């Protein structure tokens, strides 16, 4: 569905992303794990072409080479990004935010049906359609952001830290919704701090360190990998001094 290869990004002299290649299939959740500053956000931005990547990259979406397309045309091809900080239109109502999601031509014909599906996915939003988006809670705003992205009828959804700042209850609701998004056949590329929860729902995962992919595999295997558990799931290294319970 989405195939990326040779993706590199530099901010001035700082190499933020180095020759990254990855893929996301249909009806698959792929999570990217990495420390702060490892390049996760840059990776999503570079795929969505909201930061300039270096020449030589190749982004193929649904069999079409879309490497050179600007951000707004990538949406037209079926790629939707929910950016860090959500990027909703705070001054507009929930309904306006969602309907703007269906601005791309690919989404206009099915607009009403998609809206129904999105509201079924996030029932909270249907009571809030007239509310100004900025006055909602963080979790509700995140639902607006994801709902807006789904309104563009995407084949691949990119999500940057959707659970950031949400209560455990709200992030649980959010991850459950992502599972239902996958059931509709959409491929999801997820960047997350919450490694435990994202590995629990994901099909595959990539590990990223200082701008390079350093590991990948099925989420189930990475969940049990001791190195991964140490680095991302907060477990102490073997042999480290553990507080004794005696």
């Amino acid at each position, binding site marked *: 569905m989405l195939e990326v290869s040779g993706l590199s990004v530099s901010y001035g002299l700082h190499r933020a992303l180095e020759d990254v290649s990855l893929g996301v299939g249909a009806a698959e959740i792929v999570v990217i794990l990495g420390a702060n500053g490892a390049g996760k956000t840059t990776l999503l931005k570079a795929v*969505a072409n*909201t930061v300039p990547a270096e020449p030589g990259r190749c982004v193929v979406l649904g069999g079409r080479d879309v490497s050179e397309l*600007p*951000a*707004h*045309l990538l*949406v*037209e091809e079926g790629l*939707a*990004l929910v*950016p860090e900080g959500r*990027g*909703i*239109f*705070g*001054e*507009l109502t929930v309904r*306006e935010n969602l*309907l*703007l*999601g269906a*601005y*791309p031509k690919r989404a206009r014909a099915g607009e009403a049906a998609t809206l129904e599906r999105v509201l079924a996915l996030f029932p909270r939003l249907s009571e809030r359609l007239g509310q100004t988006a900025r006055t909602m809670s963080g979790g509700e705003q995140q639902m607006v952001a994801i709902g*807006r*992205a789904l309104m*563009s009828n995407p084949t691949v959804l990119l999500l940057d830290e959707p659970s950031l700042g949400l209560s455990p209850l709200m992030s649980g609701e959010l991850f459950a919704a992502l599972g239902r998004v996958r059931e509709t056949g959409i491929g999801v590329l997820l960047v997350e701090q919450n490694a435990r929860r994202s590995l629990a729902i994901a099909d595959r995962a990539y590990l990223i360190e200082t701008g390079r992919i350093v590991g990948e595999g099925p989420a189930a295997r990475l969940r049990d990998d001791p190195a991964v558990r140490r680095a991302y799931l907060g477990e102490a290294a073997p042999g480290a001094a553990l507080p004794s319970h005696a």
Partner: protein
Amino acid sequence: MLILDIVLGGLILGGMYALVASGLTLQYGVARIMNLAYGEVLVAAAFASYLLVTAAALSPLFGLVFILPAGFLASSLIYRVLLVPLVRRAKTREALEVDSILATFGLLFVVQGLAFVLFGGQYYSYSYLSVPVTIAGSTVPANRLLAFAVAAVLAVGIYAALMRTRTGTAIRAVAVDPASARLVGIDVQRVAGFAFALGGGLCAAGGVLVSMFLTFNAAMGVVFTMKALVVVIMGGVGNLMGALVAGLLLGLVETSVARLVDPGLTLAATFGLFLLVLLVKPTGLFGRAGR
């Protein structure tokens, strides 16, 4: 009756301010172009209307049918030729604002110079519907009343278009958050260019309406730019409703001061109100908090 005189006169003046400012709020709030040549475009439209009325013996209302689209097209051309290079190289919206001030400052002198060459420095006016109409004991010239009616129709029309149509919502989305607008597939540069052209069309319409009852000359553009800018900032940059309300408010306050205190204090009243609004709501009456 003095009160009715003030209200009628204030609404008519305010209606002109509101229309003229709504064009500028589209250019400044959506396209992020601080167009210092805005008033010059308005004066150019007034001269165009003068020529159509005096040379071609057309009614200014009929002239509007040509001059409004001409203002749209001319502004669209200005955006493409003069401003798109600036949009391309600007790293931030703030940088674009500064660049556009410099570029349109130059444009101001070009348009004003052309007007001086063609029309000289003297004042122009033409007579159209200058018959008194009596409303509940208060007398108003018919041309002003008509100008107000047309301004109201245009303002309501543009407001409805912004609120109800897909393109209108896209324009508001670009005003609020251009970075997110492209994530929903909006071609920000195209929508910004369209908003700039639309603002130019409204500006030209304002010029035609003003020329129906005001004497004008080639040097007057800056007055309109300044008034429009005051109204735009008072209402909240990029907020059409704000521009409309602030425009009407300014018209009412200016007329009240001129009639009740002293006509010489009109400008002082303008800036008094401006200061007061900014002290109470720094982002304008309808402005976003915490910008």
